[in-house]
């Protein structure tokens, strides 16, 4: 894992002091709330329905045991004993006091963490593949490149007041586990014909009210031009992205309105100019970063588990991912217990996960955009012991990628922008499918719920998506089908008129029946939908 040197630490410490000073000026009244707002936002502090919310950055979703443990301690000390892991691989605290924030930031800084640029119209925390450095199918570990971009994008002097927020994702395998093409910029580390490693760039993806899939804008950027190219992409956006309407300010609208080709032309022109400016960090910097992500000392061991306990066998089948070393797997800790709040973990659970990571996974954890936690390197021989401890703590749900493994945004329970509740709906759906035993039959089925059009719950990318809309003051839900955030990215289509809370649960049940009825062979829900189209589902819902 990356370790700060004195320079990185000084940057974060400087920001804590800067924020302390800003909070002081706010309390003294020399900063108005209007002036303070963008500053607190750049430090991840939102004002929500009931309290301040603090978002902590977990760069590319990777953290160590000590950090996870501190997150648990903060939950206990400053919040109500829990935190919420988000689709951006971050952690959110929902019940924070303004007076405590600078102290929380100082606690975080002690373990090389911060809340910098987790909100505001700047380059946000960079996301990545949660199995990076562990999965059998990656070209290289994408995280050194993500770290290089983290440093470049931290406190960037030119790009701190962009038209709108800016999200970057870096992956390095054909399989996309990070919704790369639904980011403002998606980077895939690839190899060209001559065997050289470089970066493929996508730009203009995003969700929100106008979801778009990012088109590829450059097939191959050499590694010693990576930052320069990104800088050119951002400069064109900073200069020409719309600022007249915040709903049209994301880069996706610029790329869409200019057209991909014109955007590319402008970026190439700026890129040619930037190459003359010497903005690229020395290539040795990547070489310096890489060893931090070197493989831990893997040892040969058992390659199979004892499957005599069916509960354990099910968990292994569902919640582990093939590792690049054949005596290891990556194990997913589900934060989706039946009837629970997707992505929530208590302080105790965080400290337990930290302990287990130390014991079984070389001190490392990952946050998934699906709001679960990964122990990336677990010996197959240790799986049973690990599972036993997880089970005892209510963290052993064997439901990865099933309908119970829902993404749900905070919705009306916390969020000031919400139209409808997401959390109770998620809880009721998982209870119902668990009770009927249908979860297992359905196999991979990605259900995603957002409480409003901002789409924090990725509903556009759900095999089944649910969107809360406000209909004459009543909570109302729109159902959509056929989205995907994987390498076969697609946007879900709305089925038709919306439903009440009870009605939408019925509706989910009905569409899954259509699938069970019509599926062929090994088809997933998504495959069946793509083959038979919307009509049979509509018929079942409204016919």
């Amino acid at each position, binding site marked *: 894992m990356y370790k700060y040197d004195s320079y990185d630490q000084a940057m974060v410490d400087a920001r804590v002091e800067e924020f302390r000073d800003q909070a002081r000026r706010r309390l003294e009244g020399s900063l108005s709330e209007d002036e303070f707002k963008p*500053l607190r936002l750049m430090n991840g502090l939102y004002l929500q329905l009931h309290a301040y919310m603090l978002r902590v950055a977990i760069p590319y979703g990777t953290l160590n045991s000590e950090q996870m443990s501190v997150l648990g301690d903060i939950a206990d000390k400053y919040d109500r004993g829990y935190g919420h892991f988000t689709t951006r691989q971050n952690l959110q605290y929902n019940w924070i006091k303004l007076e405590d924030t600078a102290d929380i930031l100082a606690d975080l800084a002690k373990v090389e963490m911060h809340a910098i640029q987790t909100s505001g119209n700047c380059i946000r925390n960079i996301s990545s593949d949660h199995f990076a450095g562990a999965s059998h199918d990656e070209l290289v570990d994408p995280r050194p490149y993500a770290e290089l971009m983290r440093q470049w994008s931290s406190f960037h002097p030119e790009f701190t007041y962009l038209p709108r927020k800016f999200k970057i994702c870096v992956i390095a395998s054909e399989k996309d586990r990070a919704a790369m093409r639904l980011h403002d910029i998606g980077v895939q580390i690839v190899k060209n014909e001559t065997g050289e490693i470089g970066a493929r760039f996508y730009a203009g993806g995003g969700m929100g009210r106008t979801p778009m899939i990012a088109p590829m804008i450059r097939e191959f950027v050499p590694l010693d031009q990576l930052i320069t190219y990104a800088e050119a992409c951002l400069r064109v956006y900073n200069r020409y992205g719309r600022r007249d309407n915040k709903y049209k300010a994301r880069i996706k609208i610029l790329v869409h309105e200019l057209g991909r080709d014109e955007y590319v032309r402008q970026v190439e022109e700026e890129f040619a100019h930037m190459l003359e400016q010497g903005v690229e960090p020395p290539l040795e910097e990547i070489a310096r970063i890489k060893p931090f992500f070197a493989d831990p000392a893997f040892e040969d061991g058992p390659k199979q588990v004892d499957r005599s306990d069916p509960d354990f066998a099910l968990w292994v089948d569902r919640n582990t991912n093939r590792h690049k070393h054949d005596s290891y797997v990556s194990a997913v800790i589900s934060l989706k217990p039946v009837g629970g709040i997707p992505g929530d973990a208590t302080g105790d659970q965080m400290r337990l996960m930290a302990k287990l990571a130390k014991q079984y996974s070389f001190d490392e954890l990952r946050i998934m955009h699906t709001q679960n936690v990964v122990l990336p390197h677990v010996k197959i021989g240790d799986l049973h012991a690990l599972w036993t401890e997880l089970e005892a703590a209510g963290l052993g749900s064997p439901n990865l990628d099933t309908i119970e493994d829902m993404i749900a945004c905070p919705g009306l329970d916390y969020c000031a922008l919400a139209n409808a509740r997401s959390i109770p709906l998620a809880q009721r759906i998982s209870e119902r499918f668990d009770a009927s035993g249908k979860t297992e039959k359905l196999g991979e089925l990605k259900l995603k719920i957002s409480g409003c059009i901002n789409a924090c719950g990725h509903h556009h990318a759900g095999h089944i998506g649910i969107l809360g809309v406000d209909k004459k003051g009543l909570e109302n839900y729109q159902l959509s089908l056929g989205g995907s955030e994987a390498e076969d990215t697609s946007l879900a289509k709305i089925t038709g008129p919306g439903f009440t809370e009870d009605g939408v649960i019925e509706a989910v049940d009905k569409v899954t029946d259509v699938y069970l009825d019509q599926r062929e062979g090994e088809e997933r829900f998504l495959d069946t939908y793509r083959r038979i189209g919307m009509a049979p589902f509509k018929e079942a819902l409204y016919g």
Partner: protein
Amino acid sequence: MDNALGKSPDEVQFRFRNDEMVDHAAVTVDSCCDQTNATAVRIEPGDDARVLLPFLDRLALIEVNFPAFGDGRGYSSARILREAGFTGELRAVGDVGIDQLSHMRRCGFDAFAPDKPLNEEDAKRAFATWENVYQATIDGRQTIPQIRHGG
């Protein structure tokens, strides 16, 4: 010439250069291109700074206006002008606050005329926020990656 444009020298609160200040008002980018004698120009957020590149030699002052601090186009304008070799005064005017100073300085601004005068102590601290920096800009500071690898 539009006399309403531009800040007077007494409104400049911070200045990091020793040459004499231009004491006449700035013109718009459009009129700067038409007039051959203008030595001061004012850029608005929507103006393309590159239009000025042919005239940089005769310009002593470029004011970049920030009608609202959240509109960050002026940061790109400033860097573009410095990257093109502009050595005259680059002055940030308008809604310029304490918390913008350090980034503006890095983008090449060397004079500041905020609408609302800033607390001198706070500003001094703000200019010194970053002992070291990650990104290379035209301010010529050695970056952290460069220091790590021996400059």
